[in-house]
């Protein structure tokens, strides 16, 4: 619940930044090439529509791919093949077939449900996660909103999904859904703290909330100056961030809000068809969001020796951008695969164990990491300057 004012503040900050700097590639392009006769107020709207279209398309594609990937990974971990038929090569079209099936299912709203909230909840969840993606740069020169408080904005927007989940659980008029929603609320409140604190560690090292600046700060040492190598406290903070992001994205072993063997499907119990698939898509989008954050703040962002030598060889800007984007997507893809790997390794923990882990272990450890990193950086300043 505390996420709402944070998100609103972040949105306010984003609006101020966007209005002052106009950090949007599509808007710049439109301003450059639009004819004189077009009224000025249309340009930002068009730029917003185009940006949203690109973001939605990219996330939908990533979500579809990772649903297929998850099924393949889970299959191979269990010594089977997973989907093999749909589309021909290793069942690549399975997610598309599933999507078409979900679109054609009956749109059901249970009797006694709060219809308005029931309908709004999936849209809110998906909208919040898409909103978070707006602040995520795809390459150094291709971004939709270059925010000074990018990390803050993304954390705020991804916390907003919790409100959608609680809304869905409350509106469903079902005991399972309500239990799922309560668990989600408890879990997210517990894990927001270590998530934010562990992200503070690379932020201290980077000295900026801006994702582009944070990524550019890792370009020394032939592109290997990643924050996990620059400060000994960033690696444990990265592990804490990974564990907290698992809980934040409701992934096993922290999938207590869904908990299909205890709560039928938790807050998703009464949802079906395309509304259900909105929640599903949000889960995979959130996985990518968290992995992208981890890639930007812990694992070097766009920077890698490839990009370093591409820049040294003075390749065209578009090639450098392409290499940067591929590097970032690859790093986040590895993060997503590790999340799947963990999911199919560990059984689900109990709710009291989740609470214990969040409050008694992750939060103190994250505080220790913040303290250590701050002292380390201060010591560096004192000794070398």
């Amino acid at each position: 619940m505390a996420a709402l004012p944070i998100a609103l503040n972040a949105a306010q900050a984003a609006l101020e930044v966007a209005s002052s700097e106009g950090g949007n590639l599509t808007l710049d392009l439109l301003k450059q090439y639009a004819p004189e006769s077009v009224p000025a107020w249309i340009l930002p709207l068009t730029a917003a529509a185009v940006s949203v279209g690109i973001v939605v398309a990219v996330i939908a594609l990533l979500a579809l791919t990772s649903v297929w990937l998850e099924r393949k990974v889970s299959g191979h971990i269990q010594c089977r093949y997973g989907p093999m038929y749909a589309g021909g090569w290793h069942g690549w079209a399975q997610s598309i077939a599933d999507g078409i099936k979900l679109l054609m299912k009956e749109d059901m709203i249970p009797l006694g449900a709060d219809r308005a909230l029931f309908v709004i909840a999936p849209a809110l969840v998906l909208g919040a996660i898409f909103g978070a993606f707006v602040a995520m740069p795809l390459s150094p020169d291709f971004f939709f909103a270059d925010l000074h408080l990018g990390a803050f904005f993304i954390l705020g927007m991804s916390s907003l999904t919790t409100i959608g989940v609680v809304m869905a659980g409350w509106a469903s008029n079902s005991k399972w859904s309500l239990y799922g929603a309560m668990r989600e609320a408890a879990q997210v409140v517990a894990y927001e703290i270590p998530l934010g604190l562990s992200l503070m560690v690379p932020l201290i090292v980077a000295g900026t909330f801006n994702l582009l600046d944070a990524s550019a700060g890792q370009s020394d040492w032939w592109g290997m100056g990643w924050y996990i190598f620059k400060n000994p406290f960033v690696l444990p903070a990265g592990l804490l961030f990974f564990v907290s992001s698992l809980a934040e994205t409701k992934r096993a072993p922290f999938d207590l809000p869904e908990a299909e063997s205890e709560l039928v499907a938790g807050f998703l119990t009464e949802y079906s068809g395309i509304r259900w698939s909105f929640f599903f898509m949000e889960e995979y989008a959130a996985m990518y969001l968290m992995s992208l954050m981890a890639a930007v703040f812990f694992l070097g962002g766009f920077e890698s020796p490839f990009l370093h030598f591409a820049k040294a060889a003075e390749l065209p800007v578009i090639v450098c951008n392409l290499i940067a984007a591929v590097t970032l997507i690859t790093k986040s893809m590895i993060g997503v695969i590790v999340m799947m790997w963990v999911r199919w390794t560990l059984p689900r923990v109990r709710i009291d164990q989740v609470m214990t882990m969040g409050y008694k272990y992750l939060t103190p450890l994250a505080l220790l990491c913040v303290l250590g990193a701050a002292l380390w950086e201060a010591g560096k300043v004192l000794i070398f300057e």
Partner: protein
Amino acid sequence: MKTTISARELTTPREWVQNVWDGLFTTLAGMRITGRYLLRKPITIQYPDERMPIPDRYRGIHYLEQEKCINCLACARACPIDCIEMDAIRHGKELEWVSFSVDYQKCMFCELCVYPCPKDCIHMGTEFAFVTEDRSELKHDLLSFKGMSRDARVRKKEAEEKKAAKAAAKEAKAAAKEAQAASGDQPKEEGDDG
């Protein structure tokens, strides 16, 4: 429900560090195991496309070597639950097949029908998936063709021709014998003709 926690149940700092260590390293150990499974070849096979090898003495749906069968009913008589029915029309030595059905609603795949066969022509096959949309189709006809086989038709024709040729030869012989007799005894021959 307990409302107080005694000091002994609280985690000591030493246990706390041990728990963090255990949590990290048991997870890594588990991930090492699942990672090994992730990289090995799956043990399942793509069933309808490829199949597991079936043992030689597997007892599946019967198959019948219809050419060899002599419709002796030995298998039908051996069947403990009377699920084999057969019908054929006999033309001399050849058979015109009408039906040879096994009712798989009843059949228990005991293989007792296979042993008494004098021609060794009914066997237990390797096919195990037998699915129909209607129960009546479970009464499965094992015949690969109805009526007579091409070979049987040829053999029957050959046998008939042989029989006809034999009859013709016999007739010719009889005629020749009579002709010989007629040359010695003309009036009798004429008398017979008349």
